[in-house]
């Protein structure tokens, strides 16, 4: 490395780019595919070059001083290693291309190599012998190829031939530039090698590679040697002693722009191989897992499956080590320690080595990445199923983490990890949970809570109980919802409903985060489905009503992005929305849901429709979505045979309205989606029974005015119900005053005594309703007014205002309580009214004075 070499080196960069560009266009005139990839390479290379250039310049300037301080050297070292590796890689590609006589590829690779060397020169490093050797080899083989080409009858194709000549010319040109070095190298390869090495005595490993690589003359042999030696060379580098140093280097490079993440992972894997002590292993594992998660920089894409699997394995390994060695503990917050020093329980004060890191965050991330990959994979392909199989392993890892935290008694992460576990099993049917638990059972590290005598409910219960006890209210809420969901899934509607009502979640859920709200929606929907399966039609209808009224079922269940008609989502919103989506296997089938909702609406609404007679009442629908569909179906001029689920239900509704319960039953039972419902036969049977009953009710409502008496046995025959159930149904209707009739037991008939309201009476009734509504409105505004007046009237004494507030509250409660009993409500209302007026009047008189 002498100053007189600088002349040609300087000249090279100026000439090269133009040349290479020209060559490029010449070389790939026919293969656009190749050119595009190459262009990418080019641009990325150029970027790299540019990124490095400032440093290079700096170094260049510094080279005149022939002096650089330690820090700079270290930076140079790692960079140089990398460059050498790159060069070797291109060399290899060139060799491979030579074998198949692909000169186009060689040309490209050679260009790359030249550029790399140029860069090396920019940072004032000598030309590596490897390069010179390649140059010589290339010249030889190029000449040979030309000769061969001339001899052989079959010509090379045009582009290849062109590339060959280009390479030849280029090699010649470059050879001229490096004439002196080449000469020296040819005279004494060993000596040159030594010289080259000598410049970097301190940083031995890289030149060592080149030295060893040089040994082989035959190309193929060299190739093989090359790879093995490359590994060997690294093995030298990564000794147990230097682990921490390497770790630090890797960690410093982490997150920087031009860091090659794959390379880092490879280095860390090597380090892990050589790590001996648990401390080293833990440290390397922590870094390795972290860098695996770093591999994907963008939030949108998911981790490749192989990376994820190895990360999962490593997390397992980490947990195993920590569980085995109680003297080591991984904590998120530790005292500062020297990163470069080896530590063991003996060196620490209290015999416990604390290492900075967080297993729970790895587990969390692992789980999140799993979900993310499921979100991104097409759910109808085999890939999805394959990916789903990994859940077993993930579940195991989570359980192991739980066991670990149980052992170390860290409450907070334990809660989180249990929540993760719960989220994996709460929505799954029993066989799946059993399978998951079976794998856990085979594991060496077992959490305290495992499946016992295949009772999934007890497993869920114990997990939830643990979370209820933990202090984290969010976890408590989520655990509660999961618990309810599980009960609902197992058709235990009443328990689930009671739990939901007792939790009072419906009051506070609006303040919860989106994920919890989604879970809440799912739980409510599942509750509705469970009610439906249990045959509790009214409950099912009421539960599902809310979510269907919004008409955004898919969005609320996070099973699809809602298309807003009048506003466009910003890309960020849409991205966030997409991230929220549940993976496909967690979905609740919305079509089944809709079918359940519409059928229960039908069973509730049709008798109601039949029972009301005035136009006014007709407007008050219980289920608006159903009513809308029904109106639409009414307006249809021609109705074909039913196709969709909705068609089925609408036609069934019509049949039920007309009293044709058998047709209705057949239509409902022929809906295909029921097959997705567990215990579908039982559900269908239940539906048939309900249809019979509601058909009877509808019939009575519709045709009662036309009868004076109606025989019970005829009714029983028409609706093929037992006389007993007909009697009970009719009595019930009479009792609830839906039917103005009496039962004549001796004759076995219903005697109707219908009283028609006169117009005046009807009007008077509506008037009474209206006035009632107005009074209520007035009271509400009066309360509001008093609330407001509290603030400006009683500002002087806050205590009084408080008391007033309590009073209004108390009054409201009283109002609620007595709303059922009308008489009581009157008194309360009157008192309230008087009170309000009194205070108003007092205010007035004061003002008047």
């Amino acid at each position, binding site marked *: 490395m002498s100053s007189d070499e600088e002349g040609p080196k300087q000249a090279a960069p100026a000439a090269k780019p133009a040349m290479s560009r020209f060559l490029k266009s010449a070389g790939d005139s026919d293969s656009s595919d190749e050119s595009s990839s190459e262009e990418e390479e080019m641009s990325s290379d150029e970027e790299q070059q540019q990124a490095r250039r400032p440093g290079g310049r700096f170094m260049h300037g510094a080279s005149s001083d022939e002096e650089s301080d330690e820090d700079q050297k270290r930076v140079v070292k790692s960079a140089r290693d990398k460059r050498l590796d790159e060069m070797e890689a291109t060399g290899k590609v060139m060799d491979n291309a030579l074998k198949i006589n692909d000169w186009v590829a060689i040309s490209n690779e050679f260009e790359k190599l030249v550029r790399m060397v140029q860069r090396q020169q920019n940072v004032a490093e000598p030309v590596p012998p490897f390069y010179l050797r390649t140059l010589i080899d290339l010249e030889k083989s190029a000449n040979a190829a030309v000769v061969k080409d001339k001899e052989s009858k079959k010509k090379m194709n045009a582009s290849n031939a062109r590339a060959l000549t280009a390479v030849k010319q280029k090699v010649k040109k470059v050879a001229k530039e490096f004439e002196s070095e080449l000469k020296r190298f040819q005279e004494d390869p060993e000596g040159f090698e030594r010289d080259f090495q000598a410049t970097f005595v301190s940083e031995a490993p890289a030149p060592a590679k080149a030295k060893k690589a040089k040994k082989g003359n035959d190309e193929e042999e060299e190739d093989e040697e090359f790879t093995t030696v490359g590994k060997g060379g690294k093995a030298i580098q990564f000794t147990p002693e230097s682990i921490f140093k390497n770790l630090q280097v890797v960690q410093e490079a982490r997150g920087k722009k031009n860091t090659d993440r794959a390379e880092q992972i490879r280095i860390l894997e090597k380090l892990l191989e050589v790590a001996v002590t648990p401390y080293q292993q833990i440290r390397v594992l922590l870094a390795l897992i972290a860098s695996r998660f770093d591999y994907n920089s963008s939030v949108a894409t998911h981790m490749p499956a192989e990376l994820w699997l190895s990360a999962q394995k490593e997390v397992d390994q980490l947990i195993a080590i920590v569980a085995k060695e109680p003297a080591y503990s991984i904590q998120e917050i530790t005292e500062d320690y020297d990163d470069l020093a080896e530590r063991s329980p003996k060196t620490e004060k209290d015999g416990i080595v604390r290492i900075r890191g967080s297993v729970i965050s790895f587990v969390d991330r692992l789980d999140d990445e799993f979900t993310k990959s499921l979100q991104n994979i097409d759910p109808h392909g085999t890939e999805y199923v394959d990916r789903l199989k990994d859940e077993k392993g993930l579940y195991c890892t989570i359980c192991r983490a739980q066991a670990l935290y149980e052992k170390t008694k860290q409450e907070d992460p334990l809660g989180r990890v249990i929540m993760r576990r719960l989220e994996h099993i709460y929505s799954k049917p029993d066989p799946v949970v059993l399978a998951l638990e079976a794998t856990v059972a085979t594991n060496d590290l077992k959490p305290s809570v495992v499946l016992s005598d295949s009772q999934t409910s007890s497993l869920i219960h114990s997990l939830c109980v643990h979370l209820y006890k933990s202090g984290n209210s969010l976890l408590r809420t989520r655990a509660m919802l999961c618990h309810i969901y599980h009960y609902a899934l197992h058709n235990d509607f009443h328990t689930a409903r009671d739990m939901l009502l007792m939790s009072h979640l419906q009051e506070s859920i609006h303040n919860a985060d989106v994920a919890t709200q989604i879970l809440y929606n799912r739980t409510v929907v599942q509750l509705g489905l469970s009610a439906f399966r249990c045959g509790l039609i009214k409950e099912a209808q009421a539960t599902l009503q809310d979510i269907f009224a919004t008409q955004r079922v898919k969005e609320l269940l996070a099973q699809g992005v809602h298309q807003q008609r009048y506003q466009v989502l910003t890309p960020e919103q849409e991205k966030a929305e997409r991230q929220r989506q549940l993976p496909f296997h967690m979905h609740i089938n919305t079509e089944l849901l809709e079918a359940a909702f519409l059928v229960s609406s039908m069973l509730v609404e049709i008798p109601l429709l039949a029972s009301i007679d005035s136009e006014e009442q007709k407007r008050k629908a219980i289920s608006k979505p159903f009513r809308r569909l029904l109106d639409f179906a009414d307006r249809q001029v021609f109705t074909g045979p039913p196709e969709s689920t909705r068609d089925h239900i609408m036609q069934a509704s019509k049949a039920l309205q007309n009293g044709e319960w058998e047709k209705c039953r057949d239509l409902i039972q022929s809906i295909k989606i029921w097959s997705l419902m567990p215990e579908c036969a039982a559900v269908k049977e239940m539906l048939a029974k309900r249809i019979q009953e509601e058909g009877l009710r509808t019939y009575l409502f519709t045709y009662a005015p036309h009868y004076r008496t109606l025989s019970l046995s005829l009714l029983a025959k028409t609706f093929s119900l037992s006389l007993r159930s007909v009697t009970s149904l009719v009595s019930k209707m009479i009792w609830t005053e839906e039917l103005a009739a009496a039962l004549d037991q001796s004759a076995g008939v219903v005697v109707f005594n219908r009283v028609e309201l006169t*117009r*005046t009476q009807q*009007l*008077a009734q*509506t*008037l009474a309703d*209206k*006035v009632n*509504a*107005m009074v209520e*409105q007035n009271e509400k505004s009066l309360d509001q007014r008093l609330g407001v007046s509290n603030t400006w009237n009683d500002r002087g004494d806050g205590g009084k205002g408080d008391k007033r507030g309590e009073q209004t509250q108390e009054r409201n409660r009283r109002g609620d309580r007595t709303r059922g009993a009308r008489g009581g409500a009157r008194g309360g209302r009157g008192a309230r009214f008087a009170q309000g007026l009194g205070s108003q009047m007092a205010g007035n008189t004061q003002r008047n004075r």
Partner: protein
Amino acid sequence: MAAALAATLPAPQSAPAPSAPTYEAIPASMAKVIDIEAEIPITSVQLDAIVVSKIIKHAREAPGSSAHGLLLGLDLDGTFEVSNSFPLPHHANDEDDKSAKGLARYQGSMLRSLKEVQADDSVIGFYQGMTLGSFFNQTLVDTQAIHQEKLRHGGVVIVHDISQTTRGNASFRAFRLTKAFLDAYKRNNFSTSSLIDHRLTFSRILEEMPLKIRTNALVSSFLGALTEGSPSPATETNPALASSSAAIPPSYSRLNLGTANTPRNLELITEALDNYKTEEGNLAYLQRQIAREKARADTYVAKRKEENASRVAAGLPPLPEEDVSRLFKIPPEPSRLESMLLLGRIDAYGKSLEETASTGLVKMYASKTNGGN
């Protein structure tokens, strides 16, 4: 329409008559009664029989409660003496500019013609038909407000209840606007605070004036002839009964509950309630709008103050406190006149409903006790 009406009205005749001799023409006995300066306050209204019959006829013939016409007459010694009236054509869509103009032209030509035949031609108010006691509406108030300004002594409104008349008692009431309402009306301010300040409710929009009907001898004798000439309808239809008890002819008409109008009444009150509810909804919406704007303005002011405080602390000159009203358009407080009028209507309907219902109830109880015995 009101504006057009006003345009054709004669200017207030407060200007002293230019001709001095008229003073002399007034007899001493009448000198006290005739006030050219309009100084004597009006205390009562007197309707001539011809006006009564004209109004009744018009109200019965006009569809709904749309009967509407002008009153002509004089004020004499604190009494409006209404001596004549004529109906005005009714247009379905009052908003139409053309119809308003046509109305004005008709009114002008009518008054001119009356003058030509030497009849009374000085307008002293208008009359309005109504059903079931409800007469509050925006047009009435607007018209009367204009009259009150333009006419001598402010004019008067006569309202005539058609439904009462069909039941046999001709109902005429005379009203004029109260001072408090007129004040609020002039300022065009019917916000809550203004209502409180003026102590306005629907019952205080109008003040009633005593009204009497003057029949001249000819009319009296005609009426007398009418009552004598018509035999009881019950006796006529049932001659057998009439012959059996000639002393007191049985009349079942007294047992009539008089509920023929009740459905209509109920419908109207329901409608009025609905309207009121809508109006309330509008008001509430506007109130919320105002509250929102105010909150925004307040936060802006608070922010500016805070900023100024920090600027002062940093030694910088404070930013000017701009006029908030310019930045934020706080909508004016909504007028509650409409809802007040609606309340008045509801009240009137309620009252008439109560009237019929109570008499009906009494009759029913009476028949029940009779049936028991």
